[in-house]
């Protein structure tokens, strides 16, 4: 997993819960380089999960909620990292382009990145339906990222997330 995901999570935790909590979380864990991540590195995905579990233990906030909040925050940070990848301000179109363009370019920039796949089911002016497919099962992060997208461009969206089935997790994103 790309280092930026870790460093951004750190910032969010520091911001929301303070550096003491972050220090406590890290103190309990055995992490690469003692948890001194850098944005340009690549680290085991399992360490992100370890951190999230510890965070949950310390804060009692469900991991799903933690991921959603993180996603919401992460979107703008990712966008700021590569603003040239945003080709549209229409959020539904943007969402489609994450699959058809943005993540493809991300993979070119970071060949070791592991990205999800969106199976697009249908799209029109009002809605966008797709399956989130990934071995990482970070659909709650995806939900948060979409919320972040909506916030960023100030275009309100209703985000319905289904339960995981054989294909993946179904998303129905509608303008409101």
């Amino acid at each position, binding site marked *: 997993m790309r280092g930026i995901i870790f460093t951004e999570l750190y910032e969010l935790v520091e911001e929301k819960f303070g550096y*003491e909590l972050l*220090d406590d979380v*890290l*103190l309990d864990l055995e992490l690469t380089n003692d948890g*001194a*991540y*850098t*944005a*340009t*590195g690549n680290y085991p995905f399992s360490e992100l999960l370890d951190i999230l579990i510890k965070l949950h233990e310390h804060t009692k906030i469900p991991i799903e909620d933690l991921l959603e909040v993180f996603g919401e925050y992460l979107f703008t940070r990712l966008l700021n990292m590569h603003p040239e990848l945003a080709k549209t301000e229409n959020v539904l179109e943007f969402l489609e382009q994450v699959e058809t363009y943005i993540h493809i370019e991300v993979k070119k920039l970071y060949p070791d990145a592991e990205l999800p796949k969106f199976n697009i089911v249908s799209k029109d002016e009002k809605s966008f339906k797709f399956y989130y497919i990934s071995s990482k099962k970070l659909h709650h992060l995806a939900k948060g990222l979409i919320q972040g997208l909506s916030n960023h461009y100030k275009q309100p969206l209703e985000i319905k997330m289904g339960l995981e089935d054989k294909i993946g997790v179904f998303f129905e994103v509608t303008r409101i």
Partner: protein
Amino acid sequence: MDEERVKRMVNRERNARKESERLLEQKSSELYEINQNLEQLVTERTEKLTTALNNANIAMKTKDDFVSNMSHEIRTPLNAIMGFVEVMQSSEYEEEAFSNYLNIINDSSETLLKIINDILDFSKLQSGQFKISPIDVNLRDKLQHVYSLFSKIATEKEVSFLINFSNDFPKLLVVDDIRITQIVSNFVSNALKFTPKNGTVSIQVLYEHERSTLILKVIDTGIGIKKEAQATIFNSFEQEDRTVTREYGGTGLGLAIAKQLVELMSGEVIFKSIPQKGSVFGFEMPLTVAIEKKQLKSNKKRNLVSFTGTILVAEDNEVNILLISIVLEQLFVSFEVVENGLLAISAVKNNNYALVLMDNQMPKMSGKDATLEIRKFNKKIPIVALSANALKTEKEEFLEVGMNDVLSKPINKTELLEILEKYK
């Protein structure tokens, strides 16, 4: 904030920075490596491009050589033709030399025609305009014909020349016989060209019924082809090397044309050669056997005239004699040839001809003078002038000396027929 925590945090930041620097360093070396690879790639590509460019230059040179060789090939017979025509126009040549010149001109024209045909065929093949038209044909007959055409050359060169067909060779095959003949002629003429005295050239023709395939090989015991040249022998513009061109002539297109024709007919060329031992040129080609249709012999209208009796032809020019003979033979009219006016007079005296075809410009005595003589003892026999330049004044001169009609040269079958009808 307790001191331990601060230390840990500062440490964590420092480690992150160091990790960051390490990654940066790593990226730099990666970039450096990529750069190195790129440089190598550029060098390799440049080398490849240089080779490609060299090859292109060589190809261009081959084409240039071809063009200069070709213009040499064309110019040689053309010079001969023009030179001899000039000699014949200006000087007072002797009878024997005259026909010799004509032979040279004739040979040169044939060579020239062959070269031009080759070039035309080749450019048609290149542009994909070549059409193959298969018909039901007795291929054995056609190949026998090719064989007999080349037999004379083989005998002259003292090369033994054979043709063999497999036992169950089909009577009729569906094939473009003209093209097959062209291919085989090319192989055979090469084989004869490059096989020295006492050698052998044999044409082996086999039809494999199970595979519906014709296999034809022309095998010679000639000088063979050098190993280095074998790979490119079928390329256009290439002969084995320039010395071959100089010694044996030819456009260098023959084999290229043959190969393309074979491939156009879905066949494959067969080629083997051992230097100083000989070569095999041939092809394998899928061909279907045609079903024999019982056809009623159609009574084709032969241009037979009801002319009876023998014609006397007084003419000294070999080519003209040949031309007239061909036409008269086609018409099944018997004839005799004399080569000057004096001989014509005595021939008419001693024989009973039905008609005389009389050239004017002949050695010893002209046609007009001979006619005057003939008319002294034979007023009835029709005498028709063969005139090279059909000027009106000349025609009148002919009629004045006692001739009955004038035919213009070169002899045209329809006009000759009219004359024969008139004096039958």
